[in-house]
């Protein structure tokens, strides 16, 4: 894997990026929405088996970049992405790459819990079913149960798997969405402000879950809560006005950021 990555990780790179294998590499990425330049010349290395957090004020491009990683931006006709984003050294904007296969490898959890208005079981089973993961019914059931267990939801819903996913509480819904995402066994999980609609207790559960999942997945999370970024992530990237201002170990960013804009943002001084 290392041989595929042409640019070696520099010594100045964050510790976590040096310690862990590289998963996602972005170089000189620009994103445009029609005339609007949403992301400006962004380069970042995201390590595997770690949580990377994107923080920044609204409209700074963090969600846009997140959605560029699984090409969710393709659904917006006016959106244009240039530059290079590689996962495991493979360019994801390559013509030969199938976007549906790509999205199966990259799970996504959204800001608002969005379970399908179907049963809890169906919610989790949908992904494995369309990808033909399960040979038979018991197989599928096993996938559903393990996914729910991994998402820490199984104990709460095991008696009502046939109930509608929308009947769960907000936090449970979000964990159901995470279970749905990990059911297709992705390598990367993207989370777009996964706790912004949840109460603090539900948020804590999700954070705990993220911390557990970190062992096996490369997790990228966009969050508005700096405390959350500080709590769950190992790498933090600060975005501002479409620019990646600063990337660093979370421990450094929140105690001693290098850039004044980062400092101003995380201490609550932004105008």
């Amino acid at each position, binding site marked *: 894997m290392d041989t595929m990555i042409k640019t070696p990780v520099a010594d100045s790179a964050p510790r976590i990026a040096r310690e862990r294998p590289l998963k996602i590499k972005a170089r000189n990425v620009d994103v445009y929405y029609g005339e609007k330049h949403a992301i400006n010349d962004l380069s970042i290395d995201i390590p595997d088996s770690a949580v990377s957090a994107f923080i920044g004020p609204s409209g700074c491009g963090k969600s846009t970049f997140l959605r560029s990683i699984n090409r969710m931006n393709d659904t917006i006709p006016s959106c244009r992405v240039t530059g290079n984003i590689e996962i495991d050294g493979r360019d994801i904007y390559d013509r030969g790459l199938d976007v549906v296969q790509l999205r199966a490898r990259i799970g996504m959890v959204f800001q608002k819990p969005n379970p399908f208005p179907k049963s809890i079981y169906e919610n989790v089973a949908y992904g494995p079913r369309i990808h033909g993961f399960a040979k038979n019914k018991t197989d599928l059931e096993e996938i559903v149960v393990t996914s729910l267990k991994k998402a820490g939801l199984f104990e709460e819903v095991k008696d009502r798997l046939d109930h509608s996913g929308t009947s769960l509480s907000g936090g449970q819904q979000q964990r159901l969405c995470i279970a749905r995402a990990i059911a297709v066994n992705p390598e990367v999980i993207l989370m777009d402000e996964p706790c912004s609609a949840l109460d603090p207790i539900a948020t804590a559960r999700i954070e705990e879950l993220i911390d557990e999942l970190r062992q096996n997945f490369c997790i990228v999370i966009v969050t508005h809560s700096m405390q959350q970024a500080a709590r769950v992530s190992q790498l933090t990237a600060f975005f501002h006005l479409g620019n990646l201002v600063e990337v660093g170990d979370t421990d450094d960013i929140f105690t001693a*950021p290098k850039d004044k804009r980062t400092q101003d943002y995380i201490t609550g001084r932004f105008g």
Partner: protein
Amino acid sequence: MSDHIVKAYDEDLANLKTMLAQMGGLAEDHLAKAIEALAKRDTKLADYVIGQDEKIDALELQLEERAILTIAKRQPMARDLREIMVAIRIASDLERIGDLAKNIAKRSHAISEALPRKLATGLTRMGRLSLEQLKDVLDAYTTTDDAKALEVWRNDGELDALYNSIFRELLTYMMEDPRMIGPCTHLLFGAKNFERIGDHATNIAENIHYLVSGRPMREERPKKDTTSTTAFDSLNER
């Protein structure tokens, strides 16, 4: 640095600084008075210093409470967080300095009758030096001047050296005349107190450096206080 969006946050931080400045002023004042009491054998002044120490203690408590409240309310990050943490630490240093000043004032009672003046002069010199250090480091804090703090940090060696020589001198006295052991011990403790005050000033300097740069002081601290390793045998040989 620009202001916070939440103005009350700025006020909270400013409050901490004000309280710390107050504490610094008191500690400085008490130290100066203790030195004066020692030099002039002024037991009245010494009693005054002893009585005033409570004020510093109360202020420290108050500051700590405020700092904890601010952390709970504002969840400070980066510089703000460091500022609060440093304020707590400096406050505790200042409180210790206050205690030491009080201790010195107490000892001036014991020293006042017995000792020849000559011996006390070295001690007061040391006291002035520590007072100087304290003043400088407090200045460095109010102006958040990293360079000045570093200077204080380096200058601590001088104080240590002075302490070394006083230590040796007092040892010699005590060996020559066992009756002197009592007062000399008091003097020795006084000297040790000044040396400790110097150490606290260095601590404060380190904290200032951390506040400004976000990194703890990496270099080894200039320790020239060798008394803890000085064997009596070696002194005897001399």
